[in-house]
């Protein structure tokens, strides 16, 4: 059991990475979270979270090619690492165990 604790938004981002598989980058991650949760999400928040996750070892990145739509800039793709997947699972479990037995939930 790792002692990595994931914040709520960190969990959302990791889940988005799992959905998007190899197509996960800033734009798509943001849109995935926005469309699924209905919250408005800023790109800055996404990047900040990805940075934290990368520091914790939950996420790995790789560079893509530049495109003209991006003004000639490259993309950075993100994937959840095995550690990240495990941490996500543990967070989920923790939440489920806490919620067990709470009335009206």
């Amino acid at each position, binding site marked *: 059991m790792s002692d990595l604790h994931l914040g709520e938004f960190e969990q959302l981002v990791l889940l988005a990475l799992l959905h998007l598989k190899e197509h996960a*980058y*800033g*734009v798509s991650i*943001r849109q995935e979270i926005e469309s699924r949760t209905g919250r408005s999400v*800023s*790109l*800055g*928040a996404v*990047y*900040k979270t990805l*940075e934290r996750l990368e*520091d914790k070892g939950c996420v790995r990145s790789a560079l893509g090619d*530049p*495109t003209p*739509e*991006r*003004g000639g*800039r*490259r*993309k*950075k793709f993100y994937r959840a690492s095995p550690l990240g997947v495990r941490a996500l699972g543990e967070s989920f479990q923790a939440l489920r165990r806490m919620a067990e037995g709470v009335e009206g939930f």
Partner: protein
Amino acid sequence: MQRKHPPRSWSWLLERVLPHEHREFVLGDLEEEYRLRARDDSSRGSAPATDRGRLNAAAWYRRQAMAAIVRLGFRRPSLRRPSRGGSMTGVVVDDLRHGLKSLLRAPGFSAFTIIVLAAGIGLNAAVFTWIKGVVLEPFPGARRPSELVVLGNQNRDGSGCCSGTSYLNLEDYRARTKTLAGIAGYEIASVHLSGAGGAPERVGGTIVTGNIFEVMGVTPVAGRGFLPEETREPGSHPVIVISHALWQRRFGGDPSIAGRQVTVNDRPFTIVGVAPRGFGGPMAGLAFDVYVPVAMQAAVVSGQQLLANRGAQWLDLIARRRPGVTLDVVRAEMNAISEQIEREHPGLYENRTLGVYPLSQSPIGLAGAVFPVLVVLMAIVTIVLLVACANVAGLLIARASARRREVAVRMALGAPRARLVGQLLVESLALALAGAAAGLGLASWASRALLAFTPATDLPLAINLSLDRTVVAFTAAVAIVSSVLFGLFPALQSSRVEVLPALRGQLQSLSRLGMRRALIVGQVALSVVALVAAGLFARSLAQASRVDPGFDPRGTVLFSLDLFPGGYDAERGRQFFTTLLDRVRELPGVDAVTLARRPPLLPRGARGTEVAEIEGYQPSPGERLGLLYDVVGSDYFRTLRIPIVSGRGIDRRDSPTSPPVVVVNEAMARRYWQDGQAVGRRIRIGSRWVEVVGVAADTKRRGLSEAPAPFIYAPVQQRYEPDTTLMVRAAGPGDPGRIVEPVRGIVSSIDPALPLFSITTLETLVRGASAAERAAATGAGLFGLLSVMLAALGLYGIVSCWVSQRRREFGVRLALGATPGAIAGLVLRQAAWLAGAGVAVGLGLAALLSRAVAGLLFGVSPLDPVSFAATGLLLASVTLAATWLPARRAARMDPVITLRTE
């Protein structure tokens, strides 16, 4: 219309601000999504910015950019990640964020400090606003106001300042000067507007030479200024220029204002232009609504054709230096030209020249009179600011010991000392800027409050007290300097922390209170200086109020009226005055009534006249016989209760048909008739001989501190002037204002269209004469008290600190049998040392500095013992009050508890 590229300013900002590791990718993502959205927008058709909550592409980009800056921007290099990013600004802003967070963590401290700084900085901004409005930028919109100078007609040796200049002389100076780019003349003249636009009203106006706008460096909006031909032939072109305010108010900002007709003093005039917004004319602090060219002078002021009379000194002058020319060069040239004029017109311009004054020393108008008071107030608010800075510095030093651990941690992690000092300085800057922002609010209120001290006047007062860019820049500069003043030493001290003991939580070697003590002494000393100043000005004010003006100002109401706009000629005017005086005299509740062209102590003062000859007096060669005079109605001396020393006053037997007479004052009799026989002597004014029928006691005319000057009173029935002041003394005690309505009734029954204005009392005028002293005393008093309160708080703080540090010692003493009173005495002695040192230094400083304000003091020596002693006493009581709580606490300590700790 969506652009293909995202908003450039925002992407530029992001390039600068985002850290290296994210920059390329964030910008790329944002641009990619922006293009998608932009395409989406144009396929929907041009949508409004929010279409049921959906932002258009540019708005979305902006919002995302702001969020990115907040979350990712200015990241300081973290310990884990070697960063290749970070710029200088990044570091500073980062420190700012850190500083803000730490300030928010101590809200009480921050709030108090900000309030203290707001007071110090705000008051400085308020006084600066006045200095800007009256002296630095008295003419908003004028090009390079530093080039403007005031020219005053005076004697060549500098005495006899200042009278006006005649139009012909002005033209000569103007034609011959090479050092001045232009000279303009003006004279105040209120006018009666009627016709198009609204109800008839009386507005402040000024007669000007045609080049007035050019000399002052403003360009009329809507229309134009005056053409040369409009200012040449008297009476030929009835045109006026109006003020921006009048244009909006009366004409609704009509875009076709140029060419509109309006009636001025019952004559048709054409408006040819509008002065720019905020511009009020050539007199600092006043705002005029109408500019009349000199050629139309006869329609607006009474007086024979003043333009052609070289002896009529009626125009005040304002001029613009050529760039790079100094005042001394201009003065030399004015003297040279005046000599030429004297030679060309013998007898008409003897020994006179044009003195050259910068705006801040102008002998005419508000600026010169107000400036010295403003300087004093500026000095005092600077003292307040210094006390505030010292106070805050003391607090920061005290707080530094509480933050030792935090600082030690950062140093242990490798932060260089310079960086720490920088960060603490940035925190101080944040405090100062917050204080400055709050201070601007205070400044807005305080600068308006100072208006209460301007003396009552019938002139249209309008001082530009707006908090514009200059004021904000000044305030920011003051904030920055203050932050260094109060922040540098505490920052340096904080960074001198012993890392290991601090990390372990050990108390540092007892923090010595040395610097804080010095700061307290400084605060007390500065407060003493401010309070001594306040004392001196208060005593001045008291002296000024005790001056006998020479007349009885109680219970007398003044009404100004002007028969000229109503088309009265001399005969009708005299008749009007007689009827008016007779009827008002009969009113119950009226003790006496009279007229005078200018009541005494009115800021605009009396006129001067050239006297050609005084019987029985031989003038020395080159001596000018120019005397002040006023035109008064019958019963003048009785109404004002001015004693007649010999002969009689002006009364009803003085009429147009009776022999021309005058009454003189004692000063005149003393000066010109040493044998004491004034009554019966004659004086020649121009070609007219008048007989002196009485001598009246001296009165104050221009100011309370003036020495009596020779003065002549002429009867209005013999020397008609259409504008005058009705002076009515109410009978019996009670509010003299009760006669205002009955008098109004009488005036309107004689002439319903004649307005009465500037209704005030003689007491108000007398009080106004000491307005400068009152402003200085009140300002210095309030600010001095503020300083003392801050110093008292500082004293309380440091004494409390000292008491806590000495807990054990007090415990021991008490245990050994000392009385609580003795302990309290120890505490008091500590405080007394500090305060005493401060008072001694302060009194010494005050003694040195008070000489500088001797010129403003009235009947009080700069070393007035009462003021000094009172200040010392006040400080003693304040010290007592500030130390009372800590002393009580010390005396009440339970020795068992204090000895047990540690």
